[in-house]
């Protein structure tokens, strides 16, 4: 009796447990569905895909720009520009309706606009940006494709020449005057210093080569709106001049030991080497983006740099390729685009305007070192307090007179093809590299060569 009763009780218990679980599951599912329905019918959420620069500021900005009509939520993209492009393109090619706002590297704008993945900026907003507006010429150019505006510049990045004042002094260089690549390579080589550039096989290397070619009055490609039929111009005097500089640096003691894999981060460590007597111990001349200032600014929570070291940091305009032609500092930054398949394009465009105001840009510059693309922001008191006046002036001039990378729907092909033939820097030969790379680039564009 006792033995047979136990399984019965256990069976009843199990049945009660099953019933209880089923009720709980139904309630949970029901409430989740109800919540989802009520959320869907209430405030829509706009997804803003941001690159991992100034994430905290951008998150706060997203909250500030959220309204009663919509909430903005940030989604983080990978850190490399190539991966950011791939992820966004994969979403957009699949007509993803949840991609509302995007932080785009300027070189992606023509490509994405050409593919029909970006909503065109409405006439009234576009004319505010373009016709005598506040936006600097360089960033404005990056959002324009076939005479239409497809994004709103949020912040503008540019490269300047960062250097050790003591090193320039030892070399007897007058840094108030424009300097050339040759001058800084010789100065560094003769005074136990180095020259920091980005020469790994990645986008940064294209940035360097493109800036040197533009600085010699040439270009990599022109007539880019012709797509695959663009004119390939890299096999030119300007191309050869750029190759000569690469060769000169490679052959010089001023070349850093990790030159072939150097990027924006690796070159930072060569500015204040611990042992002044060791090779390259006198510091460096380095081309790099605007974040460098905040990087070296003494901050006990983030770094070990001293006031003495920081006061030895100098800045000047990007070096000239040839003596008599002004340099073309590289342009970077972020433009905000609205996804073509967004379910709320009007709200997204409104949000894009909100996150790109002069106030928002000032905030980004002060807290994260990401420089404004609007002229008025450079006059904001918070910014003039955070940066020396001459540095702000240098940033603004560099952005305004900077040289863009080729604006093409095939930019990625162009950039990768150049890297394929110009990397490693050790193999660059002014006699053959520009010619070979032009032929290869043409073949790649015409689909006659693999990349």
């Amino acid at each position, binding site marked *: 009796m006792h033995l047979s009763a136990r399984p019965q009780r256990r069976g009843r218990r199990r049945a009660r447990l099953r019933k209880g679980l089923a009720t709980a599951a139904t309630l949970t599912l029901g409430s989740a569905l109800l919540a989802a329905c009520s959320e869907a019918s209430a405030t829509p959420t706009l997804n803003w895909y941001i690159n991992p620069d100034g994430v905290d500021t951008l998150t706060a900005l997203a909250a500030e720009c959220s309204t009663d009509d919509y909430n903005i939520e940030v989604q983080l993209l990978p850190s490399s520009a190539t991966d950011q492009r791939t992820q966004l393109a994969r979403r957009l090619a699949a007509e993803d309706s949840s991609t509302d706002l995007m932080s785009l590297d300027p070189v992606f704008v023509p490509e994405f606009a050409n593919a029909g993945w970006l909503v065109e900026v409405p006439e009234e907003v576009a004319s505010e940006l373009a016709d005598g507006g506040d936006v600097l010429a360089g960033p404005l150019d990056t959002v324009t494709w076939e005479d239409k505006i497809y994004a709103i510049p949020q912040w503008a990045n540019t490269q300047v020449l960062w250097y050790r004042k003591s090193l320039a002094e030892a070399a007897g260089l007058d840094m108030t005057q424009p300097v050339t690549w040759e001058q800084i390579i010789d100065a560094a080589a003769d005074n136990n210093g180095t020259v920091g550039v980005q020469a790994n096989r990645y986008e940064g290397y294209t940035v360097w080569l493109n800036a040197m070619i533009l600085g010699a009055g040439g270009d990599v490609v022109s007539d880019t709106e012709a797509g695959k039929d663009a004119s390939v111009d890299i096999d030119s005097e300007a191309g050869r001049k750029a190759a000569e500089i690469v060769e000169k640096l490679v052959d010089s003691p001023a070349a850093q030991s990790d030159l072939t894999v150097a990027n924006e981060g690796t070159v930072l460590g060569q500015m204040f080497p611990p042992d002044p007597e060791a090779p390259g111990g006198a510091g460096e001349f380095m081309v790099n983006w605007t974040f460098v200032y905040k990087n070296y600014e003494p901050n006990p929570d983030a770094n070990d740099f001293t006031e003495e070291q920081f006061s030895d940091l100098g800045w000047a305009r990007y070096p000239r390729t040839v003596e008599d032609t002004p340099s073309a500092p590289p342009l970077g930054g972020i433009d905000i685009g609205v996804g073509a398949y967004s379910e709320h394009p009007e709200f997204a465009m409104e949000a894009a305007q909100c996150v790109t105001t002069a106030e928002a840009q000032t905030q980004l510059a002060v807290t994260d070192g990401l420089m404004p693309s609007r002229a008025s922001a450079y006059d904001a008191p918070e910014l003039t307090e955070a940066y020396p006046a001459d540095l702000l002036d240098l940033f603004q001039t560099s952005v305004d007179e900077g040289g863009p990378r080729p604006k093409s*729907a095939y930019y990625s092909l162009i950039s990768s093809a150049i890297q394929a033939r110009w990397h490693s820097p050790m193999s660059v030969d002014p006699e053959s590299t520009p010619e070979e790379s032009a032929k290869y680039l043409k073949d790649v564009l015409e689909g006659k060569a693999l990349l």
Partner: protein
Amino acid sequence: MTTSYVATAGEDTSTPSGKPPTSDRSRAEARLGQKLVAPAIILMLLVTAFPMLRAIYLSTFNYSLTAPDDREFIGLNNYITALTDPLFWQTTGITVLYMVVTVAVELVIGFGFAMVMHRIIFARGVIRTSILIPYGIITVVSGFAWQFAFSYQNGFVNDWLPFIDSTFNWFGETTPAVIAIMVSEIWKTTPFMSLLLLAGLAQVSEDMIEAAKVDGATWWQRLWKVILPNMRAAIMVAVLFRALDAYRIFDNIFVMTAGAQKTESISFLTYRQTIEQFQLGIGSALSVLLFISVVLIAFLIVKLFRVDLAQARQEG
């Protein structure tokens, strides 16, 4: 109701072709079977044949996803471009190298592991599990782990190898980078090989081994004359599976070198054309070529081992 055909003694049941005649019942069963598998076949065709046909179609275009208006029909030109490009042959060469070396090493080590797992008496569960652990780890994770291990800044490989300088950069040149990728691949998939070989080992009759022992065969003779010949089908399956897998190597290269230093495989080249550069035309052509190569390798391996697959499945 169908009646079954029962052959009586002495009755000739063969048809002119030599096959036994099909009864109504077996015909009906065959029809029912066809109806039952039809949904699965249709689904398979949708999920496998459609993408393949689509790839073949796309491969006849010069087509970039970001320039849809420039799309242009070019026939077989993408195939000509790929097959005449030195980069294609260089990546194919390195892929074959990855495949041959990793499968050969895995076959030897995997067989050793299989023997251990088969014969082990004590702590059987623990040892079998330990051997199989690497296979349970996601390839991307093992790729990162080995990348850190080979790093000259924070890895242990340089410290453990007395003949290597502590500052030696494994990913700075082609040969060491390829070795590092192969080590990661071998570490990750040897357990799979050993698992397949263990299944084959379990099928070798103990009576035969005992008989060979009684006849005075040495351990080595038993291995070469009894065990291995009886495992031929299992070895073929193991080599076939791993070779096809190795030919499609991607993850380890993606993580460890991102294709730099000429370590790129044919899958990686295809990925770069299609996903990174959005060149759907040439990317699809490369996918089709990859598919053809895989079929070719499978055919060659089956021929090489001279195994009747039906027999291997014990259907003979």
